[in-house]
Every structure is written in C-alpha cells, then in structure tokens.
C-alpha cells in the first residue's frame, strides 16, 4: 500500500490589492521566493531580465507580470493567478492591479476569495485607495481581511507609525461589515514578516503573513444552512439498450448552499412543484447526503417538470422569486450604464432578459456615501439599481449566499460582460407559480 505523501490540505483563495507603488507584485514575489515556490528556471529568467531592465537588481514583480506590455510599462494589466503550496495549505492568488481599472479587476479577483490583502505604504498611511479597497472587500463580503503595512524599513521599523496606521483604519472599519481584520507590519522588498519573522519588529507578537494565511479558519466560509441547487444540466442518458438508464432522469448542478439528504422534501422554483429526494449521485457515486459546494446529480421521487435555470430548494426556508430586483452593481464596461437599457442577466444557471429601470444611487467608494440622482454609471462605478426581468429570478440576498445572491449583466449584441451585481435580500419568500394559476 502506498503511503500518502501529503496530508489532506485545503485551499485558500486570496487576492492582493494596493495602489501602483505599494509593492504588491514584490510582496507576491517574496511569498513565492521565500516559501521556495520558485523554480530555478523562473529565478534564472528573473536574473536575465534584471540585467536588462532592473539595473542588476532582481525585480520580483517580473514574476507576475506575464504580458509583454506589462513588463515594458512596469504595470499589471489584468488579473493574474498564481499558485503555491506549503505543507499546510494550497493557495490561489488573484493578483489585481491597482491602477485605473482597479474596481473592475478587484471585483473579478476577489469575488471568489476567502481573504483579501490590502497593502498600505507605511510612509503614506491610509490613502483614498486603501479606503476603497477595504470598502470593496466588505461589499463583496470577503470573509477575512489582512492589512499589510508595507515598507516598514522606510519608517525605521517604528511601532508608533504602525499603531497610527491601524488607528486610521479603525476609524472607518466600524462603518463596514468586516468581522476578521488582521494588521501585519512587513517589508516585502526585504522579506520581513512575510515568511520569516523579522528581527526588526520585536514589538510585534503576531504571525507572519504566510503564517496567518496558513492558519486562518476558512471552514465556515461556505453556506451550509439553506439547501439550494441551481439546475445546470438535465441528465437523460436515453440509452435504448439499458432499461434502467432509459428511464433515468437526474438534475445536475453544484450545490450553492446548504446540505441535502436522501428523502428530504424539496420544492422546485419558480414553478413550486414539490417532491422528495430519491437519490443523490455525487461525483464519487451514490451518497446519503451532499453539501455545498459539491457537484451532484439528484433523482426525485416524482416525475415533475424541471429544467436548466430552475432551482431545487429545501421546503422550509424558501428563497425569493421575483421579476423586480434590487441590487448593488459594479459597472465594468467603457460604455456607461443608462437607465432603460436592456441586457441579459445571468444568475446561477439562468439567463433572462432584463431592463435596468432605475439608477437609484451612485456609491462613493471613498466616502461610502450614497449619491442620488446619477444619470449613469461609468466604468468602475458602484451603484444601486433596480432591474425588471422577463422571467422570475430565484434568489437569496448576497449577504446570505454569494452564489444565489449574485449575477452578471451581458450586453446584447457584443456579449460583453458589463456588470457584476449583488442582490439585496428578497422582501418576501417565493410564492409557487402554480398556485397563482389555480386562483
């Protein structure tokens, strides 16, 4: 018998945000370099480029900036994904640039993250961008936040300065919905408190950045409360040779919330048809129960009408179902949003026609204020809008469930993804459609 070489390890997804010169790419480079995640050919390539562009100094940013234009201009154009592992955990980093398109890119990189690292230059302290990044992380409901106070070497490793910056954050943090915030003094360039504890900060007793990433509790980041299965694909083998398979009809999808057990009473929305769970086929075979975010195929006891875009839910705590939606959105396209425009709205596994009826507010992401009366939302703007859809959308509030509370808007014609949306909770639970018809 082969002995497993690795213990089961889990996966932490995080993103890094900072403005242009905060040393974000350097920090990622340092994490990879000091955790021995870099290979010789990568280091060689770094050294080669150092001779050409870096005046002999290795530029760790070249590790993440993969496209030619990025290396030439010394900027990061788009979200880049990096991977590394320690014996305790595997990590996926979404490296999001801090310049012009930061909102769009940060929303993209952070939407599936467990944790966000906000970088602050110790010399500058909290600047407008730090407030924006922190606010976006809270809007996106990223469960954990790390404030990495960088360039501590340039402020003489001053504890006083570190405490000052923490106080600047603590002034506005109570206005946001962030439960877990950690402050760490680092020097990305020299590696202090990134992987190894720094000899320069005897006053800091906390973990290094990597130490924190390795141990932060992420087991509760998934929603295990209300069962939700957006039906992705109807599995009908239609096999004429095998009788069992000929009649097989299963509903495949990734569980977006909660736990399902054999025999559970369920409801299909928006139709309202009810049945019980007869079989749960996980990707590793039949099981008595399954949970979010597993991908499963459910077989129901009754032969009821279910298709892609429907949601199978637990009967006791119903989501909302409505054609009128209220949401916060991030606008991601150069062509601004104007009220009255039609889009496709993709929510879980359903795509419907939608019209933006009202732009209620623009959200000032520096002051967190709502500004009413905005005629349009430009690229990288956040706002609150109302949408009417051609068919009911079955949803939860984003605060309760990131997967059943989110959507994207797609421009008709070009098919560009133009917005990311987070839904406010439903005003009332779903009312089965067929009851309406019965009246």
């Amino acid at each position, binding site marked *: 018998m*082969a002995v497993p*070489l690795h213990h*089961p*390890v*889990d996966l932490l997804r995080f993103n890094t945000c900072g403005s242009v010169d905060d040393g974000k790419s350097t920090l990622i480079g340092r994490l990879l370099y000091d955790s021995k995640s870099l*290979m*010789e*050919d990568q280091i060689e*390539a770094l050294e080669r480029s150092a001779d050409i562009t870096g005046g002999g100094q290795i530029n760790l940013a070249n590790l*993440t*900036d*993969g*496209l*030619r*234009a990025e*290396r030439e201009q010394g900027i990061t*154009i*788009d*979200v*880049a994904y*990096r*991977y590394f*592992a320690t014996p305790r955990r*595997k990590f*996926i980093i979404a490296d999001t640039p801090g310049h012009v398109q930061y909102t769009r*890119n940060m*929303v993209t990189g952070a*939407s*599936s993250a467990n944790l966000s690292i906000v970088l602050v230059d110790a010399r500058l302290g909290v600047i407008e961008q730090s407030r924006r990044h922190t606010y976006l992380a809270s809007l996106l409901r990223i469960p954990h936040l790390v404030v990495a106070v960088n360039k501590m070497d340039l402020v003489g490793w001053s504890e006083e300065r570190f405490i000052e910056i923490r106080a600047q954050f603590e002034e506005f943090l109570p206005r946001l919905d962030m439960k877990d915030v950690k402050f760490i003094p680092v020097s990305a360039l020299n590696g202090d408190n990134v992987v190894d504890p720094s000899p320069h900060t005897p006053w800091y007793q906390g973990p290094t950045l990597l130490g924190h990433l390795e141990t932060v509790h992420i087991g509760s980041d998934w929603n*295990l409360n209300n069962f939700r299965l957006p039906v*992705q*694909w109807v*599995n*009908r*083998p*239609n096999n004429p040779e095998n009788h069992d*398979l000929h009649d097989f009809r299963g509903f*495949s*999808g*990734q569980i977006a919330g909660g*736990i399902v057990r054999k025999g559970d009473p369920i409801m299909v929305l928006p139709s309202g048809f009810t049945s019980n769970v007869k079989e749960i*086929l996980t*990707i*590793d075979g039949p099981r008595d129960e399954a949970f979010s*975010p*597993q*991908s499963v195929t459910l077989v129901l006891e009754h032969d009821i009408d279910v298709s*892609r875009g429907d949601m199978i839910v637990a009967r006791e705590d119903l989501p909302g179902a409505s054609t009128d939606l209220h949401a916060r959105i991030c606008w991601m396209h150069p062509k601004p949003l104007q009220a009255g425009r039609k889009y496709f709205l*993709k*929510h*879980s*596994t359903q795509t419907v026609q939608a019209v933006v009826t009202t732009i209620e507010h623009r959200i000032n992401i520096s002051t967190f204020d709502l500004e009413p009366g905005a005629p349009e939302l430009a690229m990288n703007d956040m706002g609150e809008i109302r949408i009417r859809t051609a068919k009911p959308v079955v949803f939860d509030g984003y605060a309760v469930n990131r*997967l059943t509370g*989110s959507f*994207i808007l*797609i421009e008709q014609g070009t*098919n*560009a*993804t133009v917005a*990311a949306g987070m839904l406010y909770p439903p005003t009332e639970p779903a009312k089965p459609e067929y009851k309406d018809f019965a009246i």
Partner: protein
Amino acid sequence: MSSYYLDHLQYLETESIHIMREVAAEFERPALLFSGGKDSICLLRLAEKAFRPSEIPMPFLNIDTGHHFEELNDFRDRRAKELKGKLIVRTVDEAIEKGIAVLPPGQISRNHLQIPTLLAAIEEFRFDCCIGGARRDEEKARAKERFFSFRDSFGQWDPKNQRPEIWNLYNARINQGENMRVFPLSNWTEMDVWEYIRREKLEVPKIYFSHVRKSVRRGGQWLPVSDILPPKPNEEVKDLIVRVRTIGDIISTGLVESPADNVDDIIAEIAVARVTERGSRADDKASEAAMEDRKKAGYF
C-alpha cells in the same frame, strides 16, 4: 463540521465539473481536446464524472503534428475507444497538403502549424467551443487566461480585452463564427494533476515513467533520437534512463533523467523539483513572450 469539508483536490474537481456541465448546457457543438497527455487524461475523467450515467456528450478532437510520440497516439486511440467516444484527428500533414498550413523555410518545428490546423478543424465541424487542458501555472501568459476564453472569428485571443469572470458565473455567449476555449483545469497545478491521477488511479502513457531511450544533448537539454531528429555527426548518442515531464513534439520535448517508474515516485520527484514543468519545452524558450504570441494567434 469536519465531515462537510472538501480537500483541495475535491474542491478543484467540483469547480472543474461545474465548468464542464456549463459547456454541455450552453453550447451546441462543443468538442473536448484530447491528446493522451496527462492533463487531458484528467479532463477526460472529469467529463466522465460530470455526465454519468450519460455518456460524454461531445466528441474528442486532437491536432496531430506528425511529430507526436508514437506511444502517445496509441494511448489516445485506445482510451477513446474504451470510452466509446468519437475521436476526430486532424493532422498538420494534411493541412500542409491542402495549403492551410505553410511551413516557414528552414523551420522543422510544427508547433506553430497546429494553429491553422486547429482553426480549420473548428470550421469544418462548426465547433462553437473547445475544452482544453491548459493550466494557469504552466506559463506567465496562461496565468492571465480565463476559464471561458473568448476567441474572435479569426480565433484570436485579446488579453487586454477579456471578459471579467466573477463568482462562478461564466458568460458563454458568442455570435456566429466566434468561438470559446474553455479550460476547466485553470486552477490546477502540475502537482494537483499527478495527485488526481493517483487518487483516481488513472492510466497514463508509459513515456511518463522511467525508461531507457537513445538521447542526444542539444541546447542544454536531452532530446530523444528519432527519424525526425537524427543525431548530428558530432553528437554522441547515449542510452539514458529518462522520462518525460511534459509532452510536446518529439523534437522539442526535453527528457528528464529520472528513475521514477510509478506515480508515487513522480509525485515525490515533483515535490522536490527545482525547475518548472515547461522548463523542458524548447517551444516556450524562444522568447519571454513565446506563449503570449502563439495564444494571440489562436493557439490552445
């Protein structure tokens, strides 16, 4: 609490299967690129798991450069037959004959010629989506790739103008003549692939395991001697104990000296490896932007 827990492989698996099913539901004529290499072997297993008890609802497509390892093609054909899948092979030789692909004078590598051959196959079968096994950890340009990678009607990738991918919502909409490349293994690393092969007990072509092969030293790496790559007069041919870590064309795939003859040993070897997987691929070393340029032109 602890029983409602996915380890990293289970998490990657459920993410990939979600993507496979989105493809099946959103596209009319998808294809799965299957070369017989280790990444596409994982893809195939994910497809089996995503759709069973139904059969995999799409054909397999392979672009054969004519410089493939024989062992790889044999394996490819056998696996497709075992899964009762429809395997479509289009060759660079054919494409050259038809004038679809033109070999630049003096060049031996056919890597570039896969691009027009692939694009012609997409047109021939009117595929609207191709699922591929590329991973973001392979290469810097790939690190910027999306799960659903949009290609215009010329098959081109525009890295500056990609669709943002948010949560698990994938925008799969395309117009006539446009195309989507989908990479379910985007978040997998080389180590994840081998750990998955071990967990799922997947068979892989023998050339991944240690064997004796006639090799020559060229450009800082060991290359396999073959009809296409005969030794030059001044080169010494050696019988080495080698394996391949990544499989490209037989003329550009560097051999790794290794005694690893089973999956456990390979995993142990990767765990302490000091060069990346693609460190042994000559096609990537052409320049710092070699992969970026090929992808913009329509490469996998």
